[in-house]
């Protein structure tokens, strides 16, 4: 082990100062969400004189937080589970089948990685309307299946190559059905990819704004947290104390998710980025 030299220590100190400054805006959000309105107008940088929990009570109630939290959770869960299921099945089979049709199918299924969401969102709303997937978190979750599966399928397709074909053959000879062989033998071995897929899709679906705006904003009961936050800010353009309490409540689930699974999240995001 090398000894840390003086310049290295200096660099470390500078970096920690830089990181602190980098996160300072978030610190300001936190302290100001606990202040009264007049405290904010007099000085944003000062610490709150006492903790004004009423800001959170207000935001919690007006945002209708529990309901929209559950909506977001439902849409994300349905979306992530569906993506994992359909893309692992297809990625595995397409990787194992080496025929021309399989290759064509693979190309059709990964082509959407090159199609930006904004270039088909208008017609997507129309399709969703016809399939009655509009106006409910469940429908939103189902719409995510197709939107998230191309990348996930591509990642599974690559990972299956490192799982020996003999494992499938053994299971099939032992009399397992193809589905059972997949779920009991292959799928557990693909766990690292599954973690990446879950992380990438959870972060995206939880934080997504445009698709929920397009398919949910018509029905008050089925909004997601991001939409509720958007409406909430429309109400409090000036009352920063309420607005910042709303911000904090909205980002809290993602922050907690990140703090508890930080290593997996960073690894998963990197894996997803590099695969494309």
């Amino acid at each position, binding site marked *: 082990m090398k000894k*840390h030299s003086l310049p*290295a*220590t200096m660099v*470390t100190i500078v*970096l920690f100062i830089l990181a602190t400054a*980098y996160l300072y*805006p*978030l610190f*300001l*959000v936190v302290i*100001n969400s606990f202040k009264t309105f007049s405290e*904010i*107008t007099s*000085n*944003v*940088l000062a610490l709150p004189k006492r903790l004004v929990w009423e800001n959170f009570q207000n935001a919690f109630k007006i945002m209708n937080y529990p309901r929209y939290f559950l909506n977001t959770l439902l849409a994300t869960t349905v979306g992530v589970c*569906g993506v994992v299921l*359909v893309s692992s*099945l*297809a990625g595995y*089979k*397409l990787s194992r*089948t080496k025929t021309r049709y399989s290759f064509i*199918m693979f190309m059709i299924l990964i082509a*959407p990685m*090159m199609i*930006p*969401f*904004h*270039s*088909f969102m*208008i*017609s*997507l709303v*129309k*399709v969703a309307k016809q*399939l009655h997937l509009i106006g409910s978190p469940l429908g939103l979750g189902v719409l995510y299946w*197709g*939107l998230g*599966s*191309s990348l996930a399928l591509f990642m599974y397709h690559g990972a299956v190559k490192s799982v020996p074909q003999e494992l499938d053959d053994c299971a099939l000879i032992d009399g397992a059905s193809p*589905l059972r062989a997949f779920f009991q033998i292959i799928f557990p071995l693909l766990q690292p990819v599954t973690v990446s897929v879950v992380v990438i899709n959870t972060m995206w679906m939880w*934080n997504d*704004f*445009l698709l929920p705006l*397009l398919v949910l904003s018509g029905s008050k009961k089925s909004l997601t947290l*991001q939409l509720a*936050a*958007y409406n909430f*800010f429309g109400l409090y353009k000036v009352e920063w104390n309420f*607005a*910042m309490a709303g*911000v904090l409540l909205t*980002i809290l689930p993602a*922050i907690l998710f*990140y703090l508890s699974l930080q290593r997996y999240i*960073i690894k998963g995001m*990197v894996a997803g*980025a*590099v695969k494309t």
Partner: protein
Amino acid sequence: MTQLRRKQLNRGLVFLLFTLPAFAAILVSVEIPFLMSVVSSFTKWNGLDKAQTFIGLENYKELFLDDQDMWKAFGFTLRLTLGSVIAVNLCALLLAVILDSDIKGKNVLRAAFYVPNIISLIIIGYIWRFIFSAGFDSFYQKTGWEIFMLSWLGDVNIVYFSVLLVSLWHSLGFYLVVYIAGLQTVPRDLIEASMIDGANRTKRFFRITLPLIMPSITVCVFHSLSNGLKAFDVIFSLTNGGPGNTTTTIALDIYRTAFVINRFGYGTAKSVVLFLMILILSILQVRVFKRREVEV
């Protein structure tokens, strides 16, 4: 013979059983809507009526010949993309190189810089609206620096940098971790060999490290390019396209054309153009960058 055929049939059925769910999902959510958009781009359609009137290339004609707003959005999107591709990649690479060296607490630092990336862009926009207004007022009172008195979201000449700054703040952590992962694949013995050969730090970086992490650069530039061209959320909450129309991006313009002024047919024509633009620029970028990648 029949047994063989049955086996083939069986294999085909299993293949379908595994692939059809994904095929159906992707068809419904992406490919059918995309094809419908291409068709709609040749029609006049207000989104409410069932009827879509075929009008040939009229939409494209209007788009290319007399849509000032669209071209303004086009120009702003390109400028924003160029700025953010350069800024985010330079900053992230520089920071990654420093964090990859022998310093204490690098995992904590990496995790800290990543935090803004887990917050939705909609919220990021609102946080910075607060910082730019109330926050900067207090900064000014404390420091007296003129820079905090500028109208960061109201001045046409400054707002570009505000958007750039906020996008950079949000996405830096993501590119940082990708670059750090890339730097960790550079073989230690190559670095050591170059040190023995007497290469200094700068030379080592440009001659050894940089060529070897070219794949990471390709990936990061690809992502920052397409994210820049698709920018929507952060603009929507931070400036909502203003002041005037100066920060309207193509994606926001498409959204407004369809869902605010109900010109769905025209909106789909714009979205086809966006698709082609992203496709062409991405392919060009990946081609150019791939050529510079080397094998260890």
